[in-house]
């Protein structure tokens, strides 16, 4: 990661990323209208989502040209959110199970 006080990148790179984001969006749209269901659909949507997010953060926001001392404290805390997500999946399943058990008739 080089110093990035005033980065200069070729125009071509920006258009390439733009095109890639376009294509990835089209792909995720295609997944939605395709008959794919369940795991295949979710994993493809997540894959395209993460690729798009990565391109935006890395190239458009110039994060790969920033120093580690800035990039790491920005990216590391986001991992905590995955843990929160896991907890909430467990919690959600539990609440649904209790609702079905106790309120099934109403």
């Amino acid at each position, binding site marked *: 990661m080089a*110093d*990035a006080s005033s980065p200069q990148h070729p125009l071509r790179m*920006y258009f390439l990323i733009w095109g890639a984001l376009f294509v990835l969006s089209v792909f995720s749209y295609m997944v939605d209208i395709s008959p794919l269901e369940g795991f295949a659909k979710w994993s493809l949507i997540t894959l395209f989502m993460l690729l798009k997010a990565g391109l935006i953060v890395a190239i458009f926001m110039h994060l790969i040209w920033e*120093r580690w001392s800035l990039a*790491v404290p920005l990216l590391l805390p986001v991992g905590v959110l995955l843990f929160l997500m896991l907890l909430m*999946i467990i919690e*959600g399943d539990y609440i649904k199970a209790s609702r079905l058990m106790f309120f099934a008739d109403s």
Partner: protein
Amino acid sequence: MVSDWASDQQAFKGVPWGKAMMWIFLLSDTFIFACFLIAYMKVRIAATDAWPDASSVFALTAFGVKVPLLLIAIMTFILITSSATMALAVKYGYQKDRNKTFILLVVTAVLGLSFVGMQVFEWAKLIEDGVRPWGNPFGAEQFGAAFFLITGFHGTHVTIGVIFLFIIAAKVKRGSLENGRPGFLTGRKGRYEMVETVGLYWHFVDLVWVFIFAFFYLW
């Protein structure tokens, strides 16, 4: 990395403080949006009624054909395009090309405005269809609350971004960034890093939309 942090004066070397602060703000904003999306996920898991099918709820009839998620797809492409023009504005800002930077900033802001306009249209259509934060005719009641909260918060971000884009565009146009002229409310001198800082915010708005698009509309 360790030597950067262990140095006495500055942890983020070579990074203008405005940019570092914007990044830290964006990190906190990431947590806000992530909490909304995770709350939406949890509520959706726990809902006993069937969750409304986003593809058909957000379908539009164009030329007599019902196209799923038509407006959402257009909004996605508009936001991506505005992100690209923003990135180019930052590039030309650093080349001190005032005219190109100004035009690209205005294009970005106008694309952002059209995005907000479409969102207003989408809200109006859904409200007309009977979607409310407390219920809707398509399925689980929690759908409306999650939709209005998440897209509303994102739309607010876009609107604020558009306002800042116009402010920075005006500053670029009159040469405030080149001459280091202080702003209206602040004694800080203008500089081209401001274009990058507002650009970071704008890309973040696009980034959040990527997640909303995947989790809320496609999932």
